[in-house]
């Protein structure tokens, strides 16, 4: 066990009974609700989320703030559309020749002293990381914010092996200390407000390291200071860091991490060993492709012209930074997505979260209802492709959208999410769900494919219209989902078609 560094000046601040005893970190952090296994289908999870008034308020405030910031920095660039096209083209080029670029990446990384590993799935990736960590004889790692490691549930795998994985991104720290799940790709604690964060810091920090000051307030600066002090000892102590990567440049063998806080750079530069788990779709053909990407990503994600910290590394540099550098290239369903002609555009995703921030569904339900570390519109198309449509939640995700199209407009790499959602709905139907619905839809198709049948069905509506008259329809058996909160339109006594024939005869009919 690596001894933690005592707090400066006041060891008793840890809350230990014996102020002279060095505090210890007892085993893996318990995170009972950290995984998404067994999630209910989206409408059920959404109903619970909609009733969480604090979360609704937090999400509304956060998404609208970031929406406005993004809009301002996107609108100021006249070449934004050209950048989007360039970004999409770079990704498409990489995906079209993925095998070639990955081999080039591997060759360049290896030539520069990194060790490249290939992982077919989460289990293989976790085993590779665990083996490297065990060989270092450490019982903890510090982590850079990483979606790929969350996707494979690396923290849980490490904890099961007695190794603590410390999240060092401020928001990930909040989620981890709160025994919570991330609800947003970029700002995973978006569902929390600062008073909740103060509570979490005050109660939880001391259990896993340096506690929060006893007079902690909910001022952002004080909260950040508490996190800085808590994390600093972990940065200085840790011998192994685990990261992901935003981009992996094939022609130079360079990994890139884009961040705001500098905590990522601490992890990427201080420990002796660095393990990066990188989805195979992160590869970019050339260094020049970063030109578009490093403009698209910060403007789309945090609404900044440029992010504060961009760390790039190519293998090992003697005497500077990590001396043992590993890269785990992760498939975990991506090849399957790549095989789909339409679906593969989802692999362009650079995890900026712009689609979440503009989504009217996400804004109200938050991320947990999507049952994955990838929530929001991109999650609704990515999860059913990566994981298949077998679970209740994955079957329901393609329908978790009103198809309003705000996500497509906001996407910096032009992923047509509404089109993909419709395509995936077709897959869900094809795979045999919705039996009662499919009967109804076949019937509707039969009626609508013939004007005489349609006119027949319309007679039922106008008959109902005559019976109901001017009254308002407030409830209809079987239509509760509509009428619980909405009046139903009263059918007219005459359809347009009937009116036309009455006025014009058959004139204007088919010629």
């Amino acid at each position: 066990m690596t001894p933690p560094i005592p707090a400066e000046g006041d060891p008793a601040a840890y809350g230990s009974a014996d102020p002279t005893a060095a505090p210890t970190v007892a085993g893996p952090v318990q995170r009972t609700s950290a995984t998404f296994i067994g999630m209910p289908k989206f409408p059920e999870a959404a109903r619970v989320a909609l009733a969480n008034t604090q979360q609704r308020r937090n999400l509304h405030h956060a998404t609208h703030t970031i929406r406005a910031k993004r809009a301002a920095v996107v609108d100021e660039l006249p070449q934004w559309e050209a950048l989007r096209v360039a970004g999409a083209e770079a990704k498409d080029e990489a995906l079209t020749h993925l095998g070639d670029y990955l081999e080039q990446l591997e060759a360049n990384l290896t030539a520069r002293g990194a060790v490249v590993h290939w992982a077919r799935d989460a289990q293989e990736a976790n085993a590779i990381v665990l083996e490297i960590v065990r060989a270092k004889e450490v019982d903890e790692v510090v982590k850079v914010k990483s979606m790929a490691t969350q996707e494979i549930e690396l923290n849980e795998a490490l904890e099961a092996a007695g190794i603590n994985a410390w999240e060092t991104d401020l928001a990930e720290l909040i989620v981890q200390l709160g025994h919570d799940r991330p609800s947003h790709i970029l700002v995973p604690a978006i569902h929390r407000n600062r008073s909740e964060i103060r509570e979490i810091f005050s109660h939880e920090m001391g259990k896993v390291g340096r506690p929060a000051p006893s007079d902690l307030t909910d001022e952002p600066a004080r909260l950040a200071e508490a996190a800085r002090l808590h994390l600093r000892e972990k940065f200085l102590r840790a011998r192994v860091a685990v990261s992901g990567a935003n981009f992996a440049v094939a022609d130079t063998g360079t990994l890139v991490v884009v961040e705001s806080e500098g905590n990522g750079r601490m992890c990427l530069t201080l420990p002796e060993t660095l393990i990066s788990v990188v989805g195979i779709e992160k590869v970019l053909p050339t260094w020049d492709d970063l030109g578009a990407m490093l403009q698209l990503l910060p403007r789309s994600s945090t609404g900044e012209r440029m992010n504060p910290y961009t760390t790039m590394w190519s293998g090992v540099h003697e005497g500077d930074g990590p001396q043992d550098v590993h890269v785990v290239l992760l498939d975990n369903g991506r090849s399957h997505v790549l095989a789909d002609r339409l679906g593969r555009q989802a692999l362009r995703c650079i995890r900026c979260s712009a689609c979440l921030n503009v989504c009217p569904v996400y804004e109200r339900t938050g991320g947990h209802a999507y049952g994955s570390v990838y929530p929001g519109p991109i999650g609704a198309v990515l999860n059913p492709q990566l994981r298949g449509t077998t679970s209740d939640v994955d079957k329901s995700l393609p329908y978790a959208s009103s198809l309003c199209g705000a996500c497509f407009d906001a996407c910096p790499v032009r992923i047509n999410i509404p089109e993909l959602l419709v395509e995936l709905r077709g897959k869900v139907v094809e795979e045999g769900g919705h039996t009662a619905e499919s009967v109804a839809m076949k019937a509707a198709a039969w009626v609508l494919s013939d004007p005489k049948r349609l006119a027949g069905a319309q007679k039922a509506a106008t008959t109902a219209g005559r019976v109901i008259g001017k009254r308002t329809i407030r409830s209809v058996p079987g239509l509760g989902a509509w009428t619980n909160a909405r009046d139903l339109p009263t059918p007219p006594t005459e359809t347009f078609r009937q009116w036309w024939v009455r006025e014009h005869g058959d004139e204007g009919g088919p010629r």
Partner: protein
Amino acid sequence: MTTPSARATDLKVALFATCFNDTMWPETPKATVRLLERLGCRVEFPLEQTCCGQLLTNTGYAADAVPLVRRFVDVFEDYDAVVAPSGSCVGSVREQHPTIAENGGDEALAHRVAQMGPRVYELSEFLVDVLGVTDVGAYFPHRVTYHPTCHSLRMLRVGDRPLQLLRAVRGIDLVELPGADECCGFGGTFAMKNADVSIAMGADKARHIVETGAEVVVAGDNSCLAHIGGLLGRQRSGVRRMHLAEILASTEEDPA
């Protein structure tokens, strides 16, 4: 009122009423006919028309929509212009029919669909772009707020065409809707499959509408308006829903 363009009388114009308007909201296609005839068009309503198939497509039954796509082309391809009072249905015809035809494996159909797509217009597009009018001679002395529906805004990109038309209506008190470009939460079967989220979205839309003090909320899609109007009605809000065509057809002699 702008003089009807010479083009109006030359064009062979077909009305695509849409199945939903035909069955549930006949006043909207009737108003569309009145308006277009007033502007000099000779409007035909081919009786063999049925539906664009969007309900099937967006619920995951695109394969079952192929006969509807074929029927649409059969019925409408000989016209110079097809006009529909629905951004959503026109969006389906222009954006989804090509893919449905391609995926259905019928190349000839896909070709015909691609050929006619650009001649299918949402009402405000036809008025502003084809007829070249914004002042259609309408009169509507009421406080009105306009909700741009998602498919007209982000699929068809009608932009401010409906607002240009509304601003030219005599007597109208047109007030801006806060958060106008946010979805109302209808979304077709989304309104039933995810009713709670749909209602949460609609409740915010309804609140914004009520806050404007408008008497009428106007939009280019009766589907979205059925949802918005259903919420406003349940709340006894004192705001009624109207389709854009009905306001534009309204005159002093024949008020809506």
